[in-house]
């Protein structure tokens, strides 16, 4: 029920998002939206030596989509870009503490993950075309 969804931490990330804004000199920027809800997310990535040295997001939409984007940036900041391909939707839902969402709202929670995965593939195809194909085939969308 809603009390379990809209916990303190979700409201906190919704109202005080971490890593929100533009990233000057980003290596990749990817945008996507959820046509049902109109949620929008842009993710900017800066990659140094295969590591996500900085990540920022911009977006608007419901508390679930925006809080999960904020938490996702915290999760991957400073990590090897390659781990993005292994991120599973269950992990993400667990990370944000939303394991009981209905099918419509799950899309809100996973929009940022989808954008991040597209960003990763885009980064490799622009910077490391050899490994791009393999990485993209190994990366399940969720």
């Amino acid at each position, binding site marked *: 029920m809603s009390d379990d969804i809209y916990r303190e931490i979700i409201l906190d990330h919704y109202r005080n998002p971490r890593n929100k804004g533009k990233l000057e000199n980003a290596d990749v920027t990817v945008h996507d939206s959820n046509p049902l809800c109109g949620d929008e997310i842009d993710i900017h990535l800066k990659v140094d030596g295969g590591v996500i040295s900085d990540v920022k997001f911009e977006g608007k939409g*419901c508390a679930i989509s925006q809080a999960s984007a904020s938490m996702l940036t915290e999760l991957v900041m400073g990590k090897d870009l390659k781990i993005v391909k292994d991120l599973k939707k269950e992990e993400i839902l667990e990370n944000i503490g939303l394991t009981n969402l209905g099918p419509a709202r799950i899309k809100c929670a996973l929009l940022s993950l989808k954008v991040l995965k597209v960003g990763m593939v885009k980064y490799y195809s622009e910077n490391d075309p050899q490994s791009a194909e393999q990485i993209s085939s190994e990366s399940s969308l969720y």
Partner: protein
Amino acid sequence: MQRSIVNSYELRNDFPIFRKKINGKDLVYLDNASTTQKPYTVIESITDFYSNYNSNIHRAVYQLAEEATKMYEQSREKIANFINARPEEIIFTRNTTESINLIAHSWARLNLKKDDGVAITEIEHHSNIVPWQILSQEIGTRLEYVGIDENGFLDLEHMIELISSKKIKLVSLSHMSNVLGTIVPIERIIRIAHANGIPVIVDGAQSVPHMPVNVKNMDCDFLVFSAHKMLGPTGVGVLYAKKEYLDKMKPFLGGGDMIKEVFKFHTNYNEVPYKFEAGTPNIADVVGFGAAIEYLEKIGMENIRKHEIYLTDYALESMLSLKYVTIYGPRDPKDRGGVISFNIADIHPHDLATIMNDHGIAIRSGHHCAQVLMQRLDVPATSRASFYIYNTKEEIDKFVNAIKEAGRIFKI
């Protein structure tokens, strides 16, 4: 506050869906602008058709087919009567959207030319925007928008200015907004348009189900609406057009039923309305729509309108007492239908809808197929509650309590 004559508490028993529980709670259905629930009489008439009369219409001479044809045509008569038209002026389509596309294709495309203006408004549903954009791309017509003021009223001066500018050759507009509820002064607009020789298409998807609509008094050239928004089944829409237009219009789809005689390289078309109903139509649902019209007529459209004014008045008053609620559209229930779009502080409409669902309450959240209007209001989305005959004062109390509950959860 005036009282309602419609006994919605009793009426509810006619609708099987209200026996359903959502999260253990009674269903409070407040998404009627989207689609409405169906009474037993409508559901049973469809079962009855398939059980006792099923056959194709207009083609066979055996008894079953004659009975089916009669039932289908009786629905046409009921609907004609309902809006004070003649049966041959009623075309069955799939929905409002198809009706508008039919007009764009079979009339506008052939009677308008490059640089002719088509005037619509900022409150239109996508179904009354996109077909005109397509037409612009095809033949170079120019789309013009009439704006709204901050209370959601149409900018009538701009409309009149456009109409008298001689650039406009067609006006197409909603009678009632599906977002703001605004009822537009349709008769006045039609009078002025006609004085300038301009035909008017009325999108009655929201008005025909909720208030008396009389095409003779209104004098519109085209009126479109959907059965599913007025207790009827999905898959049936209506296009009303004055006979003089229908006679001159070209077919929309070609095939069976719309023909009189087919030769190798040409065809003589059937007369109206059949010329526009190609192929086997949605017979059973048209019959079901007839049952819906009977149900509505038994209650009376004046009474339905009064009931919705009563509910809207009560809802607006309760909502406006909460400081954090923003309401869009006219304040006086006399100026609007039973549709209330609103926002609550920084709670996104989808989050609100999720909280409402805990309480068994179905409201809509999003852009309501009116993104041009959302851009005008400068909001990404709104929440929307919309009422019908079976909604009660008690349900409005539940709805307002759920708004307060959302305020608590979001710590507003």
